[in-house]
């Protein structure tokens, strides 16, 4: 039973639990057994608490036995990105500066997972403070891609993607600031969704770039992603940028999954030089598939999208340099060099030098540079104008089409170590995902096959206007169904056994 349970989708597990065919404890135990078997090679988690997970599962079983009506995902296990605060588990953002920290409050996303009866198995590894595309920037060591343990699982939500792709959990949370949900999902053969900015709460999410950070789901199917999206999204008075509107009907859209009559735009600027041929081949097949399913496909130009990457690498570091000023060794976290003679400022500088890894230091310095008064207009100010132009490109495109599509990433998963000390090469992984962060609109990545060169997963990105999150689920579900018919099952079934 145990081995079968881990391959089930979240929706299937929820059905088994609610019908009494499996208990939440059995389901949790099956995943804990899987973690025990594969975690040494995958290293998806920064913290695992089997006893706490089983206790949560027992509570769900008891409530069900008492006749309570529970949420649609009650009893389903989940891996939780270590960027969300949790009172009962350490919260580190994979940084040495927060090693062992126990927050005094739960993030809104955490609280809603608990209220929905999801069973939190542990916290997942990530690039430190969510800065990176490979999860190599973790103070606690890299996570490995279950498709090929020598490859990166994407980042920054790479522990989450690896956990779900390795069947250690059917669901995981992530956060997406420049692609940190969609890119890890793409390179591990999963579904990863960045909701509309403000659609999911940032309260208790350790801030990287506040105008961009967006919590979202990772899952093995479009429906599972939608179920999790619905479980933790929606207005939160604790987040001043939270949208006070109902969550778009994402679950209904994921169940519906059809594209007849829909207008789909292929972003002209994303493709060609710098893109892996196998990625482009699977992408073009997916576009043909959408056409065969009844969508009307046109090419759309978004001329400023090519400036999204440089604009992002000014805006995000600028916000990061300000946000990370709070890690100063005074109120919580690491403190280094307090020998009763040094000043607070000296202790801060020693603490931050010791507690932050190289990428975080680079971005803090870059942001400090871009925001300094002599350079502000030429860099940060200009990047903000580019942000306006990118939002206008989206507006113009969505007058012609209902959704835009592109490859999620220019390449498949690259080898661990290959780009570790080449920041510009690493940044290119976010080339196609960044525009939706800058404009705040909804975007999803769904698996569209394996690249011929390396037999590694390729992601199809589907983008929709702000608050049209349901539309990307609708298109994603149609693609998923048609491709699974063609493949005879989920893409992940082609992954090698761990």
């Amino acid at each position, binding site marked *: 039973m145990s081995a079968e349970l881990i391959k089930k989708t979240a929706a299937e597990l929820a059905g088994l639990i609610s019908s009494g065919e499996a208990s939440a404890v059995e389901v949790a135990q099956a995943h804990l057994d899987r973690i025990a078997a594969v975690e040494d090679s995958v290293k998806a988690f920064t913290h695992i608490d089997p006893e706490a997970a089983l206790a949560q599962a027992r509570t769900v079983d008891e409530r069900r036995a008492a006749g309570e009506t529970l949420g649609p995902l009650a009893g389903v296990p989940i891996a939780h990105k270590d960027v969300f605060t949790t009172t009962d588990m350490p919260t580190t953002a994979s940084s040495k500066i927060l090693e062992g920290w126990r927050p005094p409050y739960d993030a809104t996303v955490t609280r809603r997972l608990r209220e929905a009866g999801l069973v939190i198995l542990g916290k997942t590894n990530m690039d430190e403070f969510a800065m990176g595309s490979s999860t190599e920037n973790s103070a606690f060591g890299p996570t490995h891609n279950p498709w090929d343990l020598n490859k990166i699982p994407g980042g920054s939500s790479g522990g989450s993607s690896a956990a779900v792709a390795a069947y250690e959990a059917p669901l995981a949370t992530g956060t997406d600031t420049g692609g940190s949900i969609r890119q890890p999902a793409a390179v591990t053969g999963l579904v990863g969704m960045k909701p509309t900015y403000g659609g999911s709460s940032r309260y208790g999410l350790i801030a990287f770039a506040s105008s961009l950070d967006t919590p979202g789901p990772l899952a093995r199917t479009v429906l599972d992603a939608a179920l999790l999206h619905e479980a933790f999204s929606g207005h939160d008075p604790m987040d001043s940028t939270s949208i006070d509107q109902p969550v778009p009907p994402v679950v209904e859209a994921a169940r519906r999954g059809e594209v007849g009559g829909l207008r789909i735009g292929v972003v002209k600027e994303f493709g060609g030089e710098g893109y892996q041929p196998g990625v482009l081949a699977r992408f073009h097949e997916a576009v043909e598939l959408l056409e065969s399913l009844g969508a009307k496909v046109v090419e759309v130009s978004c001329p400023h999208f090519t400036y999204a990457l440089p604009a992002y690498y000014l805006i995000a570091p600028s916000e990061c340099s300000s946000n990370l000023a709070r890690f100063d060794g005074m109120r919580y976290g690491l403190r280094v060099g307090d020998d009763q003679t040094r000043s607070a400022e*000296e202790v801060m500088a020693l603490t931050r030098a010791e507690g932050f890894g190289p990428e975080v230091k680079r971005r803090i310095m870059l942001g400090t540079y871009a925001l300094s008064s002599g350079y502000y207009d030429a860099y940060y100010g200009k990047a903000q104008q580019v942000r306006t132009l990118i*939002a206008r490109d989206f507006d113009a495109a969505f007058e012609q089409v209902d959704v835009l599509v592109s490859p999620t990433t220019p390449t498949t998963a690259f080898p661990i170590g290959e780009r570790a000390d080449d920041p510009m090469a690493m940044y290119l992984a976010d080339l196609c995902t960044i525009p939706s962060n800058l404009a705040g609109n909804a975007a999803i990545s769904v698996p569209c096959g394996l690249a011929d060169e390396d037999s590694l997963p390729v992601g199809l990105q589907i983008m929709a206007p702000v608050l049209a999150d349901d539309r990307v689920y609708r298109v994603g579900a149609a693609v998923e169904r048609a491709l699974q018919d063609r493949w005879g099952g989920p893409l992940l079934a082609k992954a090698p056994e761990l």
Partner: protein
Amino acid sequence: MLNEHAAHGSAAAGQARGGGAITRDEVAHLARLSRLALREDELDHLATQLDDIISAVARVQEVAAEDIPPTSHALPLTNVFRADEVRPSLTPDQALSGAPAADEQRFKVPRILDEEA
């Protein structure tokens, strides 16, 4: 902090840049502004990398953006207020639970006076 840096770096302000975007002295100055006590070898390494990155992101200056308003945020937002009423919050023990040092319900920090001396 802004003014401190402006005095240091304003000579090069606004120039279109490409290679040689930032000097090692400027990097050392940025580290001080960022409260990062970096080693000499870290500064050397960062100087090269920041130069590469700044040269690349300077591409934003190619965009014709005359009269384009800046966007700081993706959503049209107005200030959100709540009623000014007392609500439960963290206890002193909770608030101090992660403190590196605490004393009499306060965060205990290294000396902050006479820093400029």
